[in-house]
């Protein structure tokens, strides 16, 4: 390892690119062309650096690596602290992997205000990388909240017909959830005297305090994830956002909620987490079944995928709150897999939307006759979304359910019905769009994937299959950190949940159980 501040470089490189785009001069076409290129190359370089980082990553330790520290608000003991461990490093990789793909995908789709679009995207990338690499709670919060600004603009400026409503809903929902998180951070800071995440992990909180802090964090992460019933912003935001915006929303922003649970709720408030686990399980099971049924009835392709995201994230939360290594590793793996799969699904919708300008399922049918390559890609991704063995979706779901069966058979059974329903809506969607007779007039001249589109689908498909067939490299990196997390929660959880239960009013405690 060298002294080169590799994490800072990755985090702020996109911002540098954005500043550079701002300086481009010339007529509109020149600016648009150059902005696209700058954005693409910046994000590709960021991805390259991330690959270097993972090659250098030491998989034998659960310690944070590539740490950087500088005093930032020295009066308050708040520092600029970056670092990654086995859990966060893949989210970093996922982020930097998806952003170049997004930029290629909107190469032609975005025609207006290209410069602003690219700037917003690069700023967003910095914020996302910052969330996963910061080791200071206040910094985490700043990045976590800061991405509201570019995302709000992306949905609102380049979105669909109801973009304004959706942008508001996204912004205000997320903000409302996270302000309570801010208060929790302040409280923890005042109690512990630091916002340093590794230091806070060693702090032991009284059970009563844990309950409130856990709830405050839950308000933020549950909205972000999103968990039922806090998910209503998601279908709107997904549907109205431009394709690349949906990809980032589904691929990365949702994962921040899950990451938050892993980074804060589980290790810092293990007693409260255990106490609330049945509550989380209930919400997740409802999410899995209910949103799957809702997805089954959707007329709009993007909406269907949005609801399927809620269902899949429900399975993730079930995994995370099993507190055993299989469940948590499965949860993380499922998040990564869903990041790739849902990103690919939104891109798939984007491809036909660019050609036909409709998201209605009913306006398609029989595409296989004109678009064989497209049908193939769609099939692989559909099967991955269902969780067919040899695709990435299978590994995550399998591990999660192995974990859940050790904890609660009912949760596992009900959760698995969601998987069945998932197969139903995805396969039905596939049948209605791809198979059947090609009767619609405007589809008769539709063209298959272009080279550019094959270019961004190929890595996604390869990754989906690779993760499904040979998940070992991923799990190896995860393993030590997850074991450490499990040990942390086990050590603290010695009857703590009962103490938490005693502190709440009886009725509330019973209801939550």
């Amino acid at each position, binding site marked *: 390892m060298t002294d080169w501040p590799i994490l800072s470089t990755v985090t702020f490189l996109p911002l540098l690119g954005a500043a550079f785009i701002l300086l481009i001069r010339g007529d509109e076409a020149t600016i648009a062309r150059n902005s696209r290129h700058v954005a693409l190359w910046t994000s590709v370089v960021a991805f390259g650096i991330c690959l270097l980082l993972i090659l250098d990553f030491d998989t034998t330790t659960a310690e944070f690596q590539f740490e950087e520290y500088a005093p930032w608000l020295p009066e308050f003991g708040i520092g600029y602290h970056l670092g990654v461990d086995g859990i966060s490093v893949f989210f970093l990789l996922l982020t930097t992997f998806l952003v170049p793909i997004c930029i290629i995908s909107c190469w032609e789709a975005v025609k207006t205000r290209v410069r602003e679009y690219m700037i917003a995207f690069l700023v967003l990338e910095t914020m996302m990388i910052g969330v996963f690499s910061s080791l200071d709670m206040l910094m985490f919060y700043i990045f976590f909240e800061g991405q509201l600004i570019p995302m709000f603009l992306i949905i609102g400026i380049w979105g669909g017909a109801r973009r304004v409503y959706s942008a508001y809903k996204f912004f205000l929902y997320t903000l409302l959830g996270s302000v309570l998180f801010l208060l929790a951070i302040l409280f923890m800071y*005042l109690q512990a005297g630091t916002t340093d995440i590794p230091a806070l992990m060693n702090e032991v909180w009284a059970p009563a305090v844990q309950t409130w802090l856990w709830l405050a964090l839950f308000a933020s992460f549950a909205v972000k994830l999103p968990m039922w019933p806090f998910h209503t912003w998601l279908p709107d935001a997904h549907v109205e956002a431009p394709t690349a915006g949906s990809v980032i929303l589904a691929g990365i922003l949702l994962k921040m909620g899950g990451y938050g649970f892993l980074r804060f709720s589980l290790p810092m408030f293990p007693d409260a987490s255990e106490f609330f686990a049945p509550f989380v399980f209930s919400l997740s099971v409802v999410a899995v079944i209910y949103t799957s049924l809702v997805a089954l009835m959707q007329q709009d392709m993007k909406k269907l995928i949005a609801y399927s995201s809620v269902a899949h994230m429900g399975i993730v939360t079930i995994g995370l709150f099993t507190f055993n290594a299989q469940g948590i590793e499965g949860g993380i793996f499922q998040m990564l897999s869903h990041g790739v799969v849902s990103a690919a699904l939104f891109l798939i919708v984007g491809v036909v939307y660019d050609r036909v300008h409709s998201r209605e399922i009913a306006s398609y049918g029989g595409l296989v006759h004109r678009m064989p390559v497209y049908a193939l890609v769609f099939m692989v991704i559909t099967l991955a979304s269902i969780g067919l063995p040899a695709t990435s979706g299978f590994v995550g779901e399998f591990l999660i359910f192995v974990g859940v069966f050790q904890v609660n058979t009912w949760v596992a059974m009900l959760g698995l019905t969601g998987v069945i329903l998932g197969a139903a809506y995805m396969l039905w969607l596939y049948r209605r769009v791809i198979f059947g007779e090609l009767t619609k007039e405007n589809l008769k001249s539709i063209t298959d994937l272009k080279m550019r589109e094959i270019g961004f689908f190929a890595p996604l498909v390869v990754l989906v299959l690779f993760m499904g067939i040979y998940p070992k490299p991923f799990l190896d990196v995860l393993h030590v950190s997850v074991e450490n997390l499990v040990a942390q929660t086990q050590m603290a959880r010695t009857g703590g949940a009962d103490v938490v239960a005693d502190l709440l009013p009886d009725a509330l405690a019973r209801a939550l159980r």
Partner: protein
Amino acid sequence: MAEFTTPDYLTALPEMFLAAVSLVLLMVGVFLGNRSTNLLTWLCVVAMGAAFIMVLVGSHAHSTTFFGMFVSDSFSIFMKCLVLIGAAVTLIMGMGYVKREGMNRFEFPILILFATLGMLLMISANDLIALYVGLELQSLALYIVAAFRRDSLRSSEAGLKYFVLGALSSGMLLYGCSMVYGFTGFTGFDEIAVAISHQGVDAHGAVPIGILIGLVFISAALAFKVSAVPFHMWTPDVYEGAPTPVTAFFAAAPKIAAMALFLRVLLGPFHELLTQWDQIIIFISIASMALGAFAAIGQKNIKRLIAYSSIGHIGYALVGLAAGTPEGVRGVLIYLAIYMVMSLGTFACILAMRRRGQMLERIEDLSGLSKTNPAIALALAIFMFSMAGIPPLAGFFGKLYVFMAAIEQGMYALAVIGVLTSAVGAYYYIRIVKVMYFDKPAESFDKPIGAELSSVLIGTGVITMFFFAYPTPVLEGAQAAAALLFP
């Protein structure tokens, strides 16, 4: 006072300098007439700059003069710096407007200078009489500038409303002062503090009812000056009616001076009564935050919207005062400093809202600004997100410190209400962003906006955007100033 000693003039040097300069400039104006307005404005700015330097290089030690009526300390230095910056910047920003909109009379910059002098005196007041004199000097000048466009009905109405309600609040202030004087026998802050602490001890910790009544009246009058709910009614009308540079001045300088006075009075002479006035502050803080958040939603005029937003911001600043700790006061000071920068920037944007020579004030006039005037749109978007408290912009840090103080004191309910109202308030801030970025473009604003406005826009925008990178000077200044109020 048995014998007369020469007061220490050096302590009050900036104020005496400004007083002398304003009189001289008044004479210059009388002789040269209205064509000298431009020159006088620049001279006023220079005088404020000189006073700023005097404040900064002057002694930072705690010192009183004029028989303890006037105090200079790190708290007053911090506040005076803010006020002087605010006043000077608004004068510069307003120059174009003053020239174009028939306000080109030499009294304008001089009245602003007088008001600024009044504010400096308020900030340094260490006696009820000094407080009143400073406050009135400021208010009288402000009444006139609010009504400065005599030919405009709205401006005259604003001035009159401000005057009537301002007079009422001055009356309340005087009544409160006389009650306090009657029950303690002193007008000096230090003596009142001693008197209250003695009396409080005598009667089983109970406070004489007269002092309490006096405290309530003084608090009400000061709440009026900072426009906290329920004494806010004048704000939207005056903000909307007054000429825009005057509104910018109202938002930047007098609020800060009045808040300084609020802090000094409540934490100085009435520090012993913290548990008594705390209830008042908590109530007006919550009420201001809530009203600021909800009442602004339906506004169509941007000046009116900013008026409601300023009520909300005062509510947040008062959260820090409610905590009643050095950390809380530090939060208030940081909040005020950041708020001043944001509101100066916002008003610079409003001053740039001009189409074919006509000033515009409706929010819908901003539609599509990101296409027609991208730089102004970007700046205004930064200010709006910052006022909404979205990190990493400056406004977030302002809120961070006041809420930190509230949580430290265990005021969880106050903090929770505060953050929830800030989420509600975010709605109308992002509405402006929506109008500028999502709506169809209207006709472009007049270009260029002028060197003064653009430099103010760039300066405030950069500070708002990059405050997080180097917050130390503001933090340290606020820290030192806050520590002083807690001996």
